[in-house]
């Protein structure tokens, strides 16, 4: 019992660390592309770790499956939106450079 709890805590801690790093990147990185890079990648890993922690904590297959679905959808959404954002940014920058 105690080991699973420790594992859960460790996963949660690492996940939150990734979140913090992603947020820090969002605030500190110089341009949109690198901010997106920091935010989506770090946050997707962070969410995955937190979801994994939650799945272990509940210890139920159904819950784990739902959490996996949640994570998958979040990854798809993050991927799509960052693609769109990046393209928009590039398009906005092009005319300025000319």
């Amino acid at each position, binding site marked *: 019992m105690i080991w699973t709890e420790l594992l859960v805590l460790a996963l949660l801690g690492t996940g939150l660390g990734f979140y913090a790093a992603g947020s820090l990147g969002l605030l500190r990185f110089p341009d949109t592309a690198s901010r997106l890079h920091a935010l989506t990648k770090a946050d997707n890993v962070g969410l995955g770790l937190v979801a994994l922690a939650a799945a272990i904590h509940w210890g139920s297959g159904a819950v784990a499956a739902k959490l996996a679905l949640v994570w998958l959808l979040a990854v798809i959404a993050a991927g799509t939106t960052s693609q*769109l954002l990046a*393209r928009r940014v590039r*398009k*906005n920058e092009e*005319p300025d450079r000319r």
Partner: protein
Amino acid sequence: MSGAFDLILCLMILGTAGIALFVRDALAAIAFFIAFGNLMGLAWLSLGAVNVALAEIAIGAGVTGILLILARARLLALGDPVHSGDTPTWLWLGAFAACTSFAVLLAATVLSITPESGLDRVVAPLMPGLGIENRVTGVLLAFRAYDTLLESFVLLGALVAVWSLAPARAWPGRPAEPRMADGQMHQVAGASGRVLLPVALVMAAYLVWAGSDLPGGAFQAGTVLAGGLMLAAMGGAIGLPRSDRPLLRAALVLGPLVFLAIGLGGIAAGGFLIYPKGLAKALIVTIEYTLFLSIGVTLALLVAGPPVADSPVPDAGGNG
């Protein structure tokens, strides 16, 4: 410790609301409004109202947020910068004084009432007769089904009201396509829309089914369906229908009509909206599935707006 969580959450709610209301840039305001809606969802979770949390995040934050973003974009395209003009000093001073005293008075009023779940005691013994477990669904579709019936017509009426704004030449027509102008962006959005629409359908159907016993229900599920439809429309995976298509009209009225028919059928069993003994669950599930479909289509079209004269010319020139 639970109290500390509640307190921090409430402060964050007030903070995001304050920014959403008072920040200068309209897009930032809407972004913070969406964050505010999600935090409100957390507040409902913390209160133990999972049904409301789902509705708040899906409808309050999601659909309302998209509505505001679309409206802002359309206003910008029309040359309205969405800036609030400056308010005269006397007005905001007066308003500030009035609203501060109102806040104090209202807070005092709220504190004078002891929070309690008084009607839960009334609802609980009635649930076995319905054959479902979710008490909120019980209230929405049995004990106060009349409210919900009228509400489904408010939603339908709102779409009629939006349509009534269509310009003369645009009727009957299609709403403006919420499409990405850029070809490649369109492809990205289209791909995600195609992937997500079936997922949304399955998820929504599950939410309705779960709604009998677990948190969920027709309104939450309808919003998920609407979200899937909107994403698919943005990517061009599906087109927006003409307002006079018979199939569309049928889809819009199906839920309210079935609800109304079941209500009138109740007259045979003794009175308006009475469910015959033993049939309650079957009727409730029937109402929920048809209502969910109509709500999904209605919400998606509400977001799309009134029909416009001609579909937009695809502009490759970027953000003009």
